[in-house]
C-alpha cells in the first residue's frame, strides 16, 4: 500500500486504471489536461499495457476510444467541457449504438469560468445525449466513480460520462493505493452492420433500447449505496432540506458540520442523470422547502418537479451564474434560513474585508503573455505591418494577444480561419477590400484549422493567416503537437510538418519566419498582405516559428541580451501599451520606463520597439 497526494485528475487516472482501462485518449484543455499524463505516469511505474494518445481533437479522441470499446476493451477519453461540443456528434450517436467494453467519457467542467469560453454544464450534455453521468464531489470520489463508470458502462452496454468540475480536477488529496495490473482482454470486434452501421430505421429501435437501458441503470443506482443518498430520519418532517451534487455538496457538508446544523438534512445526487426519482420524492415529501446547490447550470432543480418547494438558480435564491465558492453558499444558506424564519448561520466577517480591499484599489492582474513569448513579437509585427486589419484569433495562450491590440475575435477552436473567410466574404460582397489577419496556434491548427482553411481556399477567400508555431500546446501545460513527432508517452511518432499540411489545403503562399526577427516578420506580413490583394493571389500563410520560452528555455534563447532603458525615454508608454512585456514597467522613482531584471529573460525583442530608441543593449 502506497500513500501519495493526488491531484484530482490523477485520482481519475488511478480509478480508470484500477478499473482495467486499456485505452485512454485525450485532447488537452483546462481543467482536464492532467488526466492523460496521470495515466501515463502510472502505466510506466506499474508496467501496464494501457495504450495512450494525445489525439488531434476531442471528436477524434472519442471515436478512437469508441472503436476500442466496441472491440470489447475498456476505454476512456478525456476532455474539457467545451471539448465535448467538438465530440458531440460522436457522443450522440455512440449513445444509441452502445458499447461492448466499458466506455467512459470524462468531461471536466469549469464553473467560474476560470479558463474556458463558457460555463456550460456537462450534465445537460449527458441528458441531451441520454447517457448516464456521474458527478464526483472530490478526488477520492472521482477515483471511485471513474472505476464505477467503466463497470456500469460495460454491464449496461452504454457510454457513461464522468463530470468532475475544476475544484475536483485541481484539488489535491491524499490517497492510498496498491499496485496496478494490466487488463489482458483482447480485441475481438464482432461484425454486425445492422447494429454498428445502423440506418435510421434501426436507429429508432436503438433509441428504444437506450431508453430501456436507462430505466435499468436508474433502478441499479437506486439500489447502490454511495451514489445517491439522503440523511432523513424516518417519519420526521423538516422545514428546510438541501439537495446538492458535485463540489457544492462537499461545501454544504463542511458548512453544516462547522455550524453544527444537524437540523438540515442533505440529499446528495451523484448521478444527476438518470435522476434518482424515488429518493427525490422522499426528500420533497419530508421537507417543506428544498434548497438546491449545484454547478454550473440548473439540472437537479429541473428534475425536482415541485416548483413551490424548490429554491435554486432558477428561482433566484442562488446566483444564476458563476462558481458556488464556499462563502457564496454560506450566504445563500444563511439568506434562505432567515427568509424562512429559521435560526441563521454564524456571522461571516468576510464582507468587511472585501469592502476594505475595494477601498485599497489594488492593481488588476490580468493574465499576460510571458516575458520572451514569441507570440508577443508576432502580434507586435502584425500590428505594425497591418494596422487597419481585422484580427481574428483563436484559443490558446495567444488569445492574450488582445492585450497588445492584436486580437479582435475569439469564438471557438479553429474560428480564426473560418471567421477570417466569413469577414472576407461579408466585406467583398459590398466591394470593400478589408484587410484581415488571422492568428492561430500550431496545436489549434491541427485540432480544427484544416477544414476551415480548405473551405476558405475552395471558396476563394483572401486573408493573411499567421500560424503561431511555438512547437508545443503551451496553455494547457506543454503537450506535444503532431508537428513535433513526440507522442504522449514520450515515444517517437511521425512528425507532420505544418508546411505540408498547409500546402495540402491548397495554399500557394507559405513563408516561414522567426518572429524574434521583428523586421523580417513585418516585411513578410506586408508581402503576404500584398499577395492577398494581387489578382492572381489568394490566401497567404505565414508560419511564425519560435519555440515556447517556457517549454524550451535553452533552445528558445540561444543569445540572451541584457536590456536597459536609457534617459532618452520620454514616457510615451508606447512600449508598455503596444508591446506589453511584464518586464517593462513605469518606474515612478526615476520617472521613466525601466526593465525589471528579475522578470526579463533577455530575448531582446523589445530592442526593436522604442520610437526614441531608448531601449538598448547594456
Amino acid at each position, binding site marked *: 500500500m502506497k*500513500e501519495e*497526494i493526488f*491531484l484530482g485528475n490523477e485520482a481519475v487516472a488511478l480509478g480508470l486504471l484500477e478499473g482495467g482501462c486499456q485505452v485512454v485518449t485525450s485532447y488537452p484543455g*483546462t*481543467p482536464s*489536461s*492532467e488526466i492523460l499524463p496521470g495515466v501515463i505516469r502510472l502505466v510506466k511505474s506499474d508496467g501496464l499495457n494501457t495504450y495512450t494518445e494525445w489525439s488531434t481533437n476531442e471528436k477524434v479522441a472519442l471515436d478512437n476510444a469508441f472503436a476500442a470499446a466496441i472491440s470489447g476493451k475498456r476505454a476512456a477519453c478525456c476532455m474539457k467541457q467545451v471539448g465535448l461540443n467538438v465530440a458531440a456528434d460522436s457522443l450522440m450517436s455512440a449513445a444509441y449504438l452502445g458499447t461492448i467494453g466499458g466506455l467512459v467519457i470524462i468531461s471536466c467542467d469549469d464553473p467560474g469560468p*476560470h*479558463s474556458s469560453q463558457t460555463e456550460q454544464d456537462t450534465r445537460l450534455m449527458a441528458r441531451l445525449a441520454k447517457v448516464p453521468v456521474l458527478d464526483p*464531489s*472530490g478526488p477520492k470520489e472521482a477515483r471511485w466513480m471513474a472505476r464505477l463508470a467503466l463497470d456500469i458502462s460495460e454491464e449496461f452496454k452504454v457510454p457513461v460520462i464522468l463530470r468532475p468540475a475544476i*475544484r*475536483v480536477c*485541481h*484539488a*489535491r*488529496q*491524499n490517497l492510498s493505493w496498491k499496485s496496478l495490473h494490466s487488463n489482458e482482454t483482447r480485441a475481438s470486434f464482432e461484425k454486425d452492420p445492422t447494429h454498428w452501421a445502423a440506418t435510421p430505421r434501426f436507429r429508432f429501435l436503438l433509441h428504444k433500447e437506450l431508453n430501456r437501458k436507462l430505466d435499468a441503470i436508474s433502478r441499479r443506482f437506486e439500489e447502490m449505496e454511495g451514489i445517491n443518498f439522503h440523511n432523513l430520519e424516518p417519519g420526521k418532517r423538516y422545514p428546510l432540506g438541501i439537495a446538492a451534487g458535485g*463540489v457544492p*455538496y*462537499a*461545501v454544504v*457538508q*463542511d*458548512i453544516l458540520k*462547522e455550524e453544527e446544523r444537524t437540523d438540515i438534512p442533505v440529499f446528495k445526487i451523484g448521478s444527476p442523470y438518470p435522476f434518482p426519482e424515488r429518493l427525490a420524492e422522499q426528500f420533497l415529501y419530508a421537507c417543506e422547502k428544498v434548497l438546491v446547490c449545484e454547478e454550473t447550470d440548473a439540472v437537479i432543480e429541473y428534475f425536482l418537479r415541485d416548483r413551490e418547494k424548490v429554491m435554486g438558480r432558477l428561482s433566484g435564491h442562488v446566483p444564476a451564474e458563476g462558481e458556488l*465558492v*464556499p*462563502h457564496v453558499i*454560506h450566504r445563500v444558506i444563511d439568506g434562505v434560513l432567515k427568509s424562512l424564519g429559521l435560526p441563521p448561520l454564524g456571522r*461571516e*466577517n*468576510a464582507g*468587511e*474585508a*472585501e469592502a*476594505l*480591499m475595494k*477601498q*485599497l484599489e*489594488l*492593481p488588476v*492582474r*490580468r*493574465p*499576460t*503573455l*510571458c516575458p520572451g513569448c514569441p507570440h508577443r513579437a508576432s502580434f507586435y509585427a502584425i500590428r505594425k505591418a497591418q494596422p487597419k486589419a481585422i484580427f481574428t484569433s483563436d484559443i490558446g*495562450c495567444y488569445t*492574450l494577444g488582445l492585450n497588445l491590440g492584436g486580437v479582435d475575435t475569439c469564438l471557438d477552436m479553429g474560428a480564426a480561419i473560418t471567421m477570417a473567410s466569413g469577414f472576407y466574404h461579408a466585406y467583398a460582397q459590398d466591394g470593400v477590400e478589408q484587410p484581415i489577419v488571422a492568428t492561430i496556434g500550431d496545436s489549434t491548427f491541427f485540432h480544427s484549422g484544416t477544414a476551415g482553411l480548405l473551405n476558405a481556399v475552395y471558396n476563394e477567400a483572401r486573408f493573411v493567416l499567421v500560424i503561431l508555431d511555438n512547437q508545443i500546446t503551451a*496553455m*494547457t*501545460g506543454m503537450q506535444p503537437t503532431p508537428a513535433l513527432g513526440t507522442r504522449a508517452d514520450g515515444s517517437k511518432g511521425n512528425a507532420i510538418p505544418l508546411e505540408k499540411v498547409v500546402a495540402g489545403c491548397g495554399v500557394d503562399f507559405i513563408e516561414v519566419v522567426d518572429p524574434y526577427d521583428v523586421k523580417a516578420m513585418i516585411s513578410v506580413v506586408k508581402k503576404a498582405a500584398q499577395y492577398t490583394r494581387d489578382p492572381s493571389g489568394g490566401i497567404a500563410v505565414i508560419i511564425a516559428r519560435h519555440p515556447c520560452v517556457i517549454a524550451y528555455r535553452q533552445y528558445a534563447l540561444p543569445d540572451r541580451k541584457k536590456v536597459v532603458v536609457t534617459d532618452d525615454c520620454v514616457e510615451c508608454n508606447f512600449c508598455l501599451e503596444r508591446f506589453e512585456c*511584464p518586464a517593462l514597467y513605469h518606474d515612478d522613482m526615476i520617472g521613466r520606463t525601466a526593465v525589471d531584471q*528579475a522578470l526579463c529573460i533577455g530575448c531582446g525583442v523589445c530592442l526593436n520597439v522604442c520610437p526614441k530608441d531608448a531601449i538598448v543593449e547594456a
Partner: protein
Amino acid sequence: MDNMNIVLCGLGGQGILFMTRILAQTALGKGIPVMGAETHGMAQRGGSVVSHLRLGNVEGSLVRAGTADILLALEENEAYRTLPYLGRGGRLYANASPRVFPSPVVASYLEKHHMVCRCTDAGRTAMEHGRPMSSNLALVGFFSAFNEGPFTFADLRETVKQISPEQFMATNLKVFDACHEIAADKKR
C-alpha cells in the same frame, strides 16, 4: 488536531504550487489528511494565483472566506487581495518589507480582528543567495520559525530536502535556513 485552513497566494510563476506541496507533504508525513485546491491554465499566466490547503477531515478543497488560520503571501498586493480569507485570530505571513507593510488601514483591520502580521523581505533574502526565484522557499523558511500546527522547522526542512529537484536542493536549503534565522532572531 483541529482542522486547519491555509491560503497561499502570489503571482503566477512565483512557485506557489511548490510552496503548497511543501506544506501538504509535511502534514501528510505526520498522518494528517490533506485537501487542497490549485490554479492552472489561463489564470497562471502572470495573474493572481491562490492556492488552498486544508488539514483534517474536510470534504471541500476551498477555504471559505473569513475562515483561514494562516495566509502565506508572496506579494504585497496579493496579500491584501486575499485578506478576506483570513479569519479572526489568523496569522498573515508575507513576503514584504516590515517598513512598509502592512499599510496603516490594513494594520488597524488586522488589529481589530486579532490577526497577526509577520513579514520579511523574502525576495531580497532569495536574491542575496543568488536565486531570486526562491522567495517561496524563503517565506516557508521564515514561517518555519513559528511552529504553526504540524509545521515545525525540522519537518518542513526535511520535506524541502525530499522534494527539491537535485540541482536546486542546496540553494533551496540555504535560502530556507537564512529566512528561518531571520525569524528566529526576531523572536529572540
